[in-house]
């Protein structure tokens, strides 16, 4: 369980490391987060850090939310995200604290989640990596799924059978990617390799849960 920050996928480029090796990187602009509330076991039944991200016009905030922000005395935020933490990490933060790119350090591992690019209604070759048949020599089996089960005995198609359908556009996560660089000036981090989502998509970045 770790603190999740929101960011914006800017795009991809490449950098050279100190050995001269080329590294493909994804650029994520961290949306500076503000700690809005600390939820404790005593008052809420669980421990979590409530963080708000992004600007929002005052007239776009609905009444209940503007009341909430007025109560804690902070500017309204566009996104509110809760991160489950333990009591120890909770102590390190105060309401109003800012979290930005410097939350991450160079060389550490992170997980990045986002909504993947929608591929529409995709066939089995694209969606499930089926091989398909040959195009020529009288082949009548090109890109279709082929057999999807036995006949009379089950008399139905089993659930979970790989068939054509909607692909992409769902939340997906890349785990354990290394932070190549942290640029505090631009509030940007560079992570190795690709991350889900289109450019300018909202992504969630957290310290890698499997590397703690």
């Amino acid at each position, binding site marked *: 369980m770790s603190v999740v920050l929101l960011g914006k996928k*800017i*795009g991809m*480029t*490449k*950098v*050279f490391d100190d*050995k*001269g090796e*080329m590294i493909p990187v994804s*650029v994520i*602009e961290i949306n500076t987060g503000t700690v809005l509330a600390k939820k404790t076991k005593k008052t809420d039944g669980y421990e979590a850090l409530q963080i708000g991200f992004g600007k929002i016009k005052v007239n776009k905030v609905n009444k209940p939310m503007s009341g909430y922000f007025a109560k804690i005395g902070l500017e309204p935020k566009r996104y509110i995200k809760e991160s489950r933490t333990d009591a120890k990490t909770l102590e390190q933060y105060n309401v109003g604290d800012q979290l930005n790119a410097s939350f991450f350090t160079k060389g550490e591992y992170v997980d990045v989640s986002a909504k993947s690019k929608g591929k529409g209604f995709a066939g089995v070759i694209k969606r499930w990596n089926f091989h398909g048949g040959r195009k020529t020599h009288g082949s009548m089996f090109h890109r279709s799924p082929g057999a999807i089960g036995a006949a009379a005995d089950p008399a139905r198609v089993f659930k979970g059978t790989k068939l054509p359908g909607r692909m992409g556009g769902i939340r997906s996560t890349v785990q354990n990617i290394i932070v190549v660089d942290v*640029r505090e000036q*631009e509030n*940007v981090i*560079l992570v190795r390799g690709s991350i889900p989502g289109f450019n300018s998509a909202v992504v969630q970045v957290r310290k890698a849960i499997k590397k703690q």
Partner: protein
Amino acid sequence: MSVISKIEQENMKKKVPEFNVGDTVKVYTKIVEGERERIQVFTGTVIARKGKDANEMFTVRRVVYGEGVERVFYVHSPRVENVEVTRRGKVRRAKLYYLKNKVGKSARVKEKKR
């Protein structure tokens, strides 16, 4: 300026050696062998330059013992120490891929006369 172009700019060399397609060049590349670092020279004809800005690459071709060898380098790679032009070539194409099909005398590039 966008963040990406800023990052790319920082990864580019300030001064890039000047050479063109058709030139015979010596490419000085840094090679790391365990702890030691040494410089290896690859000599040949530049047969292509492609990409732009931080993505620019060039291909150098030479024939070693009758076998064609081509290496692709990043112009802005820190491993490419220097590119020294030994002979300016006179060419009428941007890509000299036709050299791949030529052997011996016909696989030469004319020298540029000033």
